[in-house]
């Protein structure tokens, strides 16, 4: 194992207070394949309650000392991560090949993700893996209705774990799934009861791994087929998922120019962006994904996952006008293509 030499994959587990983040983490870490996982738990308040519950990872748990992770991210989390690597280098803790950061229930994960990915020192050590958001059936709808943090936790998720499904009836589960779909139609949703064993893939399969890249992209295509061209805004707040499309190949420089300009002007409103891009001169799609102002290095896919060669960009955003963005994509990236009347409408 070469945890201190190779980039370590850092996963984020988030979810509202009491959703079951620590329970999920315990069940994941009990699996032998995930034994070489270091854990950072964000302590909120004076007592690290969650820490008392994470018994199997005592040696590798580091508690942040100064409250909410999103407020102190630039210093405490960075220093904590670097100290973990230093401790591994000195042999004080075993080498680790992945890192899990469990946020407080009140944290907005988007700035955490952005900081993890943008800091030059952390970039050397880390590669962002999956964002896993836990939502419990009994309280999930109420939390989504009442708290912006809860909605943003769902909006940035790659995987949504619906927990405590055995504590509510089928109608409640259906209602929660519908609301989750309106906020984030591109995530992989898994229902888990109190005794279920979560899939190791949550912490093993990522976009950066060529072997699992196609599987990681599959839920994005679900967002495309499920939502069509409609902007499905959430009932509460304006976070919603929509899809931008282009039927002809795009020159990469034009796309890069458009996207860089878009995130410069509107990055705060773009909670997640995930796209399969049909690039001129390439037979297979290029995967682009990002969080707010941060876009990850684009990646090649070996083929079109559903056999359909078409640019599709899933945007999970807050207060964005899908028709205007579609018009902008066409104007910047597809010169000469007629803008449809409904696309020009604002």
């Amino acid at each position, binding site marked *: 194992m070469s945890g201190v030499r190779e980039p370590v994959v850092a996963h984020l587990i988030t979810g509202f207070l009491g959703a079951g983040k620590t329970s999920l983490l315990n069940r994941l870490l009990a699996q032998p394949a995930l034994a070489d996982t270091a854990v950072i738990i964000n302590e909120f308040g004076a007592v690290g309650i969650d820490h008392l519950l994470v018994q199997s990872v005592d040696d590798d748990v580091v508690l942040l000392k100064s409250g909410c992770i999103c407020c102190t991210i630039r210093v405490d989390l960075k220093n904590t991560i670097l100290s973990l690597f230093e401790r591994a280098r000195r042999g004080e803790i075993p080498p680790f090949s992945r890192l899990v950061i469990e946020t407080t229930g009140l944290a907005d994960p988007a700035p955490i993700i952005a900081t993890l990915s943008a800091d030059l020192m952390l970039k050397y050590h880390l590669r962002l893996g999956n964002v896993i958001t836990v939502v419990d059936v009994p309280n999930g709808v109420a939390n989504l209705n009442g708290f912006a943090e809860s909605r943003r936790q769902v909006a940035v998720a790659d995987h949504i774990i619906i927990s405590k499904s055995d504590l509510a009836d089928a109608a409640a589960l259906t209602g929660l799934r519908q609301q989750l779909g309106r906020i984030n139609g591109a995530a992989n949703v898994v229902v888990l009861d109190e005794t279920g064993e979560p899939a190791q893939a949550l912490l093993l399969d990522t976009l950066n791994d060529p072997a699992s890249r196609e599987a990681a992209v599959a839920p994005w295509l679900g967002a495309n087929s499920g939502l069509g061209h409609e902007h499905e805004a959430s009932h509460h707040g304006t976070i919603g998922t929509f899809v931008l499309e282009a039927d002809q190949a795009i020159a990469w420089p034009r796309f*890069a120019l458009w996207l860089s300009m*878009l995130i*410069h002007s509107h990055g705060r409103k773009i909670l997640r962006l995930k796209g399969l891009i049909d690039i001129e001169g390439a037979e297979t799609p290029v995967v682009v994904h990002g969080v707010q102002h941060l876009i990850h290095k684009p990646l090649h896919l070996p083929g079109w996952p559903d056999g359909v060669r078409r640019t599709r960009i899933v945007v999970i955003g807050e207060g964005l006008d899908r028709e205007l963005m579609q018009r902008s994509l066409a104007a910047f990236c597809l010169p000469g293509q007629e803008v449809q009347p409904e696309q020009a409408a604002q």
Partner: protein
Amino acid sequence: MCGLCGVLNHADHWTSGPGEASGATRPAADRHLRAVAANDVLALFGLKLESWAGRYTLRSRTGKMAVVDNLGAVWVEAEKLIGRPCDPLDPAVLAQLEAKGR
């Protein structure tokens, strides 16, 4: 880093693209193509981008200049040079681009 001018290499920015699936690289040619594509749009703002020493120079019509590492850094400097926002959702910008494309 360039041994002649001491400029750091910033080629790994996402705007550089995924590279060739085969692993082949042509960074200078790609940087030139990105500048050409950018100038189609930057001309609307009276700006011009040129590839320079692994980076870019961004110039205004009045002769003001900034050096940027990648396309992602263009817009901050562009707004400084022209004193107004560069918004890809601005209907006036879109109308100009659409008129050019027809």
